[in-house]
């Protein structure tokens, strides 16, 4: 008996301003020749984080870290036990913007 479920990849005309890539149409053959079509659109994937400029916070937070965390301690199960702010290594020459 042939499989009554047919899956194939198709190009779906996207709405204006929306790009749909990898959409999958699923057709199900029912009684009386009725065919039900379902279009599955994959969940959008996050864009790679652009590199922050030096001195700037990353534009896309690192997963699992909270804002302002510079270090943390994880237990064997991965739970955060302690954390602290970033480490600031500074040398003061007394420069001003006018002297740059």
């Amino acid at each position, binding site marked *: 008996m042939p499989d009554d479920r047919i899956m194939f990849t198709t190009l779906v005309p996207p709405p204006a301003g929306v790009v749909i890539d990898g959409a999958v149409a699923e057709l199900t053959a029912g009684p009386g020749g009725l065919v039900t079509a379902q279009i599955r659109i994959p969940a959008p994937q996050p864009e790679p*984080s652009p*590199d*922050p*400029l*030096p*001195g700037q*916070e*990353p534009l896309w937070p*690192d997963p699992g*870290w909270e804002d302002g*965390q*510079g*270090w*943390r*301690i*994880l*237990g*064997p199960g991965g739970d955060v*036990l*302690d954390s*602290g*702010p*970033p*480490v*600031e*290594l*500074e*040398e*003061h*020459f*007394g*420069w001003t*913007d006018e002297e*740059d």
Partner: protein
Amino acid sequence: MASGMASALRAAVINATAPTGATAGAAGTQALGFSTSAAMKVRLNSTSSTATAAGTELTGTGYTTGGQAFTESQTAITSPTNSITLPKTTVLSWTNSSGSAWSIQSLDIVDSTALRTWWGDFTGAPVSVANGNTFQVAVNGISITLT
């Protein structure tokens, strides 16, 4: 928290920008004397570093003597008023399997030959990492600034 440039780095900056070069009267162009052929590292210490000496380095399983290497380079700054933040995209991570707790006080940034450049205490130090736990430094968890 105390931090700053290692004394050797201060001297290297002056030498590289004054007539101390191999050619008579020329600037010292020895690239500040630090290795550029291999990754720099983060060294963890149980005591505070100073401008003239590194703190006492951690020991035990889970920590490699000499420190953990950066896996990528950060974008160079174009103004001295900017900061460089490290690591760029890869979290630094150490899992303590030494059998006893680590007490982490400070870090040093060193070149591949262990020459020190920057040093400083962790904010909140000492940081106690029990055996079996993992200590991590976030992306951009270290900032370097000249002011």
